[in-house]
């Protein structure tokens, strides 16, 4: 846990997962056993190049595994979450939930708290024409 200003605990967020494009890919893969490159491209709306880069990063981090095979005379590239990837994704969502709960409780605490100081008086700024 990190602390930003001494009283707000910040859970560790996995940077590999937290990137929106990679998170979209992992969201798709967490809902199925495996998906091919074309479906991931269409579902996440990523360009081929971007998707390829993000898949490589996820594979290097051990979150997914990529398989290439020939099916119906064409190359089929499929990706699936590894067991480690599922654990990482689960931990990520737990961290995000903890962060949200902490932020909500902090907001609730500040909303009900009485104001301590008086608002500073408004300064008159003359408008030059």
């Amino acid at each position: 846990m990190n602390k930003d200003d001494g009283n707000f605990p910040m859970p560790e967020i996995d940077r590999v997962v937290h990137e929106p494009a990679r998170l979209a890919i992992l969201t798709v893969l967490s809902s199925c056993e495996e998906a091919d490159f074309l479906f991931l491209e269409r579902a996440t709306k990523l360009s081929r190049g971007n998707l390829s880069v993000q898949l490589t990063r996820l594979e290097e981090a051990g979150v997914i595994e990529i398989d290439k095979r020939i099916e119906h005379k064409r190359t089929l590239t499929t990706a699936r979450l590894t067991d480690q990837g599922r654990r990482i994704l689960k931990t990520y969502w737990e961290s995000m939930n903890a962060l949200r709960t902490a932020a909500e409780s902090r907001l609730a605490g500040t909303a009900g708290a009485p104001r301590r100081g008086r608002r500073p008086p408004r300064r008159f700024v003359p408008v030059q024409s």
Partner: protein
Amino acid sequence: MQTTALSDAPSQGQELRYLTAHFRDLQGLRMAPFWVALLVLTSLAKTGSYSKVHLAWAAAILIAAQFGWLYLSGRLYERRYGVVKEPDPGVRSQLISIMHPEASSNPLARRYGYLSDVNAVLFLLWAFMPVPDIFLGYRVQPGMFTMMVGVYQVFARCISPVTTNWPVRLRRILAVTAMIAMLGIYLEYYFARIDLLTWMALLFSFPLMLDLYDHWLLNHLLNGDFTERSHE
């Protein structure tokens, strides 16, 4: 802009999960041509200018051809939209799998949805018996036929999970409406207010409408405004 992206993130995640989990269920063009062809045959039978035997044979050949189209349309969807392998349901029979101990919090919907292809094949196998008979003019149990269309083609959509996305919710609303309407039309037929062929035409139009909506929904979810800009 940042706030909008953050507030949209959960719904986008829901859409992605829904799209992936129901990718096969939303492939409406697998069965839609079958309903169109049956509607055409029913219209031809209604005109009375074609032999009943010929129409019954045409219906039987159509059902047989539909098995091939199920496979071909699956390949077409794969080429156009990609491949998603669903988690293994474990057991093949839908009635057993509904009660499978590994089923999730909404086991009925999950297991039923995964087996949509099995539903289509079972329905087609079953349709070999009553559909040609109807064209021959026999009074095959219409209540049973309505129930089978409902169970195999409409019911899965009624219990399928929904997201906050309105087109996804509309899918369930349409399915429930279709179920009620199918029952109403059957009662109309039962009390002899409409004839057999009109009843059939109306009955086939409901799964056709739902299949076409599914195909539209698949395209809508894949071509929505969840663009690459939101990832950057």
